[in-house]
């Protein structure tokens, strides 16, 4: 139904709130919604039923919906959209919201709510969703009037994607979905006053460039912000590294922005980062942080973090700057725009690096690299998890490949042993460390990239946390490969208990694991069991050649520890390697840290 409102030149459309939701999503260019129906969202599901523009993926648990949307968002750069019902639907989504908040992933979650006249009456499936999710979102809204619904949804997309991205939530009572109101088109919507600063201060950027010209031991330290800024940021970063010949390391979240095969690549830094990366951070005289936030997994002991360096920090979020580490060159802005400006100034000034000093610095780094910190003791009888990942890397390198992970040892090994050549290819739960992230994330990635190879590198314990999503994979014919490094342990918990709690392995293993092959078959997927290193390559090829979802049960060494490791509360130059005695490496001070 079309009508023209008086006094406004824009043509306005009247429709129900439920229809508005679908229209607004279309207006925003949304192609896929991950969701689960329930009483309070039935009108919206009725509208979804009557259209074909937006595809709905029925997950098996609302947490899975949010992680799938995260996988979709991280692998495409577009916001992920979730639709769930009130009460338990919303509370189940909370872990995913916090995960997206910690890792700055743009997610728009729409929740149903009991009708406005029942709010506060402890109605069936009522929860204070905006109250519960207020600290779990970048912004949230309860829409009490259909007239404001479409406008709020447009605002939600604006806020989720602008500035530092993050999750937002719109709570829509059922009567608001049924009532009729005026639809506001995207261009007419209020985008609110929220317009974060994206252009960095040129004078500060110039000062940073000047420091780069003089630096004797520089290092680029990059993070997820480079990836969030879009593919152009990665391209500019590569140009800048090529122009300066500085070494570059990255956080877990930033892997792929600079190619792992690039000659300046030091590997990941941090608690389980590479020896050369951490020592370069410790010994540098100039650190240029681009889109990272000095997380505690990165810094180790703050007092001894890179003690003799000047630090530049580029971040779109002003609160990230000087939060943990003092920045000598603070630049608030979007990574793409700041990198553009850095390159422009670098070229305009005809900048040259201190090449003699840089040569010495590279000589030092080459010595550190020669330590070969990722070496491990191989085995001919047992599959070492590192070996499994090395083989996976070798056999999948040439594919159009996306990797997801769960959380724990396998995640760190994946970050160490797999190489990422491009951004948006690596989906992992960094800030929150959410076990159960990988399976639904892999589904979200596969939905976005139906023809690509999508692998979830998992541990068996993490994998069990959202294994119900295999049902989703089967239903939508998503050929996700679940590569489970099965050590029958909570490996990282076990490692900490060994190092810190006198080898008392309190509840860090499961005595009742399922038969993963039978489980795969029960879901309708293919199950592969591999326990002999000699069979591994063939088994991986079998997984890759199967056109459908696979659960790969890779039985690995049960007591392997993840090294290198900066023990909690220690500095970068106090990292421990595999061979050393690891007893009492974590002092009383470090013991209380997580």
């Amino acid at each position, binding site marked *: 139904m079309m009508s023209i409102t008086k006094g406004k030149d824009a043509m306005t459309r009247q429709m129900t709130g439920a229809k508005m939701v679908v229209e607004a999503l279309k207006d925003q260019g949304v192609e896929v919604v991950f969701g689960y129906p329930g009483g309070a969202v039935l009108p919206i599901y009725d509208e979804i039923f009557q259209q074909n523009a937006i595809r709905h993926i029925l997950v098996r648990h609302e947490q899975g919906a949010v992680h799938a949307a995260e996988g979709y968002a991280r692998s495409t750069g577009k916001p992920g959209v979730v639709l769930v019902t009130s009460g338990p639907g919303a509370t189940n989504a909370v872990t995913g919201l916090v995960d997206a908040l910690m890792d700055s992933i743009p997610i728009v979650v729409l929740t149903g709510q009991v009708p406005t006249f029942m709010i506060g009456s402890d109605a069936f499936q009522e929860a204070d969703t905006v*109250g519960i999710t207020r600290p779990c979102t970048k912004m949230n809204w309860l829409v009490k009037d259909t007239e404001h619904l479409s406008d709020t949804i447009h605002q939600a997309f604006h806020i989720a994607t602008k500035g530092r991205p993050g999750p937002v939530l719109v709570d829509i009572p059922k009567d608001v979905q049924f009532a009729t109101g005026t639809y506001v088109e995207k261009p007419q919507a209020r985008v609110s006053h*929220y317009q974060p600063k994206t252009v960095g201060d040129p004078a500060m950027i110039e000062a940073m460039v000047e420091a780069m010209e003089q630096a004797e031991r520089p290092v680029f330290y990059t993070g997820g912000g480079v990836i969030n800024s879009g593919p152009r940021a990665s391209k500019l970063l590569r140009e800048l590294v090529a122009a300066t010949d500085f070494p570059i390391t990255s956080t877990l979240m930033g892997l792929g922005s600079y190619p792992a095969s690039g000659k300046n690549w030091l590997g990941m830094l941090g608690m389980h980062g590479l020896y050369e990366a951490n020592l370069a951070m410790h010994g540098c005289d100039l650190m240029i942080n681009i889109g990272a936030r000095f997380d505690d997994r990165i810094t180790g002991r703050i007092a001894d973090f890179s003690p003799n360096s000047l630090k530049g920090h580029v971040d779109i979020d002003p609160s990230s700057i000087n939060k943990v580490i003092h920045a000598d060159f603070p630049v608030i802005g979007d990574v793409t725009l700041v990198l553009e400006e850095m390159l422009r100034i670098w070229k305009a000034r005809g900048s040259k690096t201190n090449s003699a000093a840089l040569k010495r610095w590279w000589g030092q780094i080459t010595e550190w690299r020669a330590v070969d910190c990722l070496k491990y003791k191989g085995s001919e009888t047992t599959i070492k998890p590192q070996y499994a990942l090395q083989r996976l890397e070798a056999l999948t390198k040439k594919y159009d490949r996306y990797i997801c992970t769960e959380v724990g040892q396998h995640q760190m090994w994946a970050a160490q042993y797999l190489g990422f050549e491009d951004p948006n290819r690596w989906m992992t739960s960094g800030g929150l460390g959410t076990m159960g992230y990988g399976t639904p994330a892999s589904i979200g990635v596969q939905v976005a990239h139906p023809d690509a190879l999508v692998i979830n590198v998992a541990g068996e314990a993490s994998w069990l946390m959202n294994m119900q999503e295999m049902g989703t994979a089967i239903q939508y014919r998503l050929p996700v490969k679940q590569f489970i490094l099965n050590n029958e342990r909570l490996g990282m918990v076990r490692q900490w208990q060994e190092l810190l709690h006198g080898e008392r392995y309190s509840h860090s293993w499961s005595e009742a694991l399922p038969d993963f092959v039978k489980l795969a078959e029960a879901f309708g997927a293919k199950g592969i069991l591999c326990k002999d290193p000699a069979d591994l390559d063939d088994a991986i090829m079998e997984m890759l050649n199967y056109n459908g979802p696979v659960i790969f049960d890779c039985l690995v060494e049960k007591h392997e520890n993840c090294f290198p490791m900066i023990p909690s509360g220690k500095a970068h130059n106090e990292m421990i390697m595999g061979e050393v005695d690891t007893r009492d490496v974590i002092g009383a*001070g470090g013991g209380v840290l997580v």
Partner: protein
Amino acid sequence: MSPLNIEKGSSSHSAYDLRSHMSDVVETHTLAVLVQNEAGVLARVIGLFSGRGYNIESLTVAEVDRAGHRSRITIVTSGTPQVINQIKMQLERMVPVHEVHDLTVEGAFVSRELALIKVIAKGEHRVEALRIAEIFRANVVDSTLQSFVFEITGTPEKVDAFCELMRPLGEVRLARTGVAAIARGV
């Protein structure tokens, strides 16, 4: 130093902030925060303070621009300079927050609090209460044969001083608004 002998800076932004701030000077700052007057905005601001472990010594809020839907929150908070800076940055990045002013660093400002003080007293004490009220320019806004209610406006220190003088005179019941503050001049 904590019993576990954890050095300053061991952890800065995990939930377990074990740093000793003893060497750092704790400052008190008065912040004026202009926010969109919408549902939940106060909960959002308070949640930031409780969630990140910041102090609130006083907080007042009221709508100050009806047409523009703006409310002004005046917060008195304390922390090391680094913490105060974080508080401001964290407030500024909140979507419904329009402006954050640190009145303490932006120049001279006026800060006032209103209190209603009920004093239940007898005989000479009633006379003394009235005499002190006159010195403090407090108004009597309610009177019975057993009690007075005084209204006093001033700095928190003035209100504190008045209350302390009233206590020996009888039973004191107190309602305070918290601080409202605004910069001097234009």
